[in-house]
């Protein structure tokens, strides 16, 4: 049957695609949720989870569980809005709330994304130095590699390579298993909430929520679903993709926390970064576990270093209306590819240039992400209930209530952090 056929006759009544057809369709849709979710486990995320496990043991694992549920909810909403409206998040904000709202959101997002991309490159530098490779070799190679991938690769090649990169996260599972964790304590920490409201605990709770649910991840998944040209018929499969991506993100975070809680927490050690955790793991869990941790760090940084400039490029084109797409020719999508290259180059330069103090930059970046997250979540909530945007597919009362709960939780964690 072809597209020439009358629509009403396009599908035989009662005919089902079958298990094999459903599986193929599901595999073809996989991508946006997995990439957006897994790239949240970037060096900043791994550092946060490492600190969570090292300083607080298994006690605060429940925060990771709730963050993962919030990630499922809002990544699903973002991909759904992308499929239904055919627009990225920043474009949709401009369309519904005006050019100034769109431009303001984009400005904060671009600055925050560039800072975060610098953090990813810093992760490449730290991880490679743990493996004995100088940052002055590793960072330019990483920058050239991710740029070449986006500039020269087709959509599917980019997607396949990024997904392959994500497989490096298995390293964290291996590192945690080598530490022989106490599964009973981990289960209790995951399911029984406990919080002392001390500054250290509220700080790490806010950081965990913020690193799991990031503004760039939300804008990326929506634009990527548009670029992948998913249709409304793909939405059930896309939901599987989102849930899978978010659950894997949570599982990896879980193993990072467990690895550090079992090895570093009992000795009362304190760490500042994920590379500290890799170094500290070596004498306790063995060289292999420490090495796996470092490999995971480099892989996580590379994945996020590829996704962040992409997310920024999609958002810039969303606002300006310029053509965006991984399969567009350079001549047709100069703004898209130019933004991608510029963000990667600037992030790499910030890491390699001497006399640039990264720490204040990274702290400011996290603050910007936190500032942007709540308004973005509110905008998404309002857009999802707007029939002019979503047509007949507006969010139902249960989904809206869940969104409001997440927004309240994220706002509360930000307030606790400031207080």
């Amino acid at each position, binding site marked *: 049957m072809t*597209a020439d056929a009358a*629509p009403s006759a396009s599908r035989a009544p009662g005919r089902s695609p079958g298990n094999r057809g459903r599986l193929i369709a599901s595999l*073809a849709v996989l991508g946006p949720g997995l990439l957006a979710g897994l790239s949240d486990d970037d060096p900043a995320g791994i550092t946060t989870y490492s600190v969570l496990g090292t300083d607080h043991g298994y006690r605060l694992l429940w925060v990771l569980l709730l963050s993962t549920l919030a990630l499922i909810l809002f990544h699903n909403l973002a991909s759904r809005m992308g499929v239904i409206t*055919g627009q990225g998040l920043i474009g949709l904000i401009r369309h519904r709330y005006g050019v100034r709202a*769109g431009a303001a959101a984009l400005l904060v997002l671009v600055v925050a994304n560039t800072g975060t991309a610098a953090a990813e490159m810093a992760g490449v530098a730290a991880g490679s130095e743990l493996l004995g490779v100088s940052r002055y070799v590793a960072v330019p190679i990483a920058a050239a590699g991710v740029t070449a991938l986006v500039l020269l690769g087709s959509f599917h090649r980019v997607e396949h390579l990024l997904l392959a990169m994500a497989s490096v996260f298995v390293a964290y599972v291996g590192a945690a298993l080598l530490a022989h964790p106490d599964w009973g304590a981990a289960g209790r920490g995951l399911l029984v909430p406990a919080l002392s409201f001390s500054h250290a605990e509220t700080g790490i709770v806010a950081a965990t929520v913020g690193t799991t649910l990031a503004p760039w991840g939300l804008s990326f998944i929506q634009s990527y679903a*548009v670029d992948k040209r998913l*249709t409304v018929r793909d939405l059930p499969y896309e939901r599987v993709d989102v849930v899978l991506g978010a659950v894997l993100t949570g599982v990896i975070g879980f193993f990072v926390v467990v690895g550090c809680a079992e090895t570093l927490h009992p000795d009362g050690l304190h760490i500042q970064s994920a590379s500290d955790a890799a170094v500290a793991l070596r004498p306790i869990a063995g060289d292999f576990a420490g090495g796996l941790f470092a490999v995971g760090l480099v892989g996580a940084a590379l994945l996020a270093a590829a996704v962040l400039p992409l997310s920024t490029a999609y958002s810039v084109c969303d606002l300006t*209306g310029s053509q965006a797409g991984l399969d*567009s020719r350079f001549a047709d999508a100069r703004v898209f590819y130019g933004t991608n290259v510029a963000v990667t180059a600037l992030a790499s330069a910030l890491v390699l240039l001497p006399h640039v103090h990264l720490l204040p930059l990274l702290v400011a970046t996290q603050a910007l992400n936190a500032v942007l997250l709540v308004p973005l979540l509110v905008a998404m909530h309002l857009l999802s209930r707007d029939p*002019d945007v979503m047509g007949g597919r507006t969010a139902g009362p249960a989904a809206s209530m869940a969104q409001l709960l997440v927004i309240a939780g994220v706002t509360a964690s930000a307030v606790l952090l400031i207080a």
Partner: protein
Amino acid sequence: MIPLTRLIGRRLSEAAGRSRQRLRDVVVDVTEPDGVATGLLLGRSAHARFVPWRDVRLHPRTGMPTQFVDGHPRAVVTGSELLLVRDVLDSRVYDVRARRTDRVAEVWLELREGRLEVAGVEVGARAMVRRLLPIEPSDRASTAPRMLLPLSAIHLMSPGGHRAQLSSAGSPVHRLSGAGTAHLLTHLPPDAAAELARRLPEQHRRRVVQRLHPRVGDRLRQALGSGSPARRPRTRRTDGWRLFLPPEDDHKGPR
């Protein structure tokens, strides 16, 4: 000419002097190629009041709407009508001559013999930056647009605009050549492309589908609900671009 952003937000008085309402949107009928205002929407969205254009009073010197006679609640626009703020301003459009997508930065209106008509839309960064600058909307009127795209040369990609243009026989989408329609289908999101394909006369649809890149044809069939599972994903750049443009021909733009 009047920029839409100068009109929106103005307060109009009821002729009887009982109330003042803020101008929320302009209702335009796209049956005529350039689009003619049929009325204004006043007030908040939930209680928006539709005022037919014949009941709007203009300022004698500036030509700006200042008063309205009466209005009545009207929840939705129907058929070939669209709302300029909701469906056109800041939304994505497809330029049928240049065969590319863009985003509308300003809508320019013109008073001709008492009728408010859409002179055209302005796209591009220049117009967007002009709106971002802290200048009074009234001053924007003096900044003449460099180039305007008439409604007859664009296809609106917002849901309301897309449907209004599909419903109107005079819209450019119904005057495109086979190649032109194939290009438009290639640029539209899959579900909107399927909606357009369903509206095409059967013979024209057949010609258009033959012109599509095979992968876009697959995608269209999927969206129409008649497709088999997707082909093996491409892994080589040389297999073609994501947009999978149909072959070029000499007929750019409307037939």
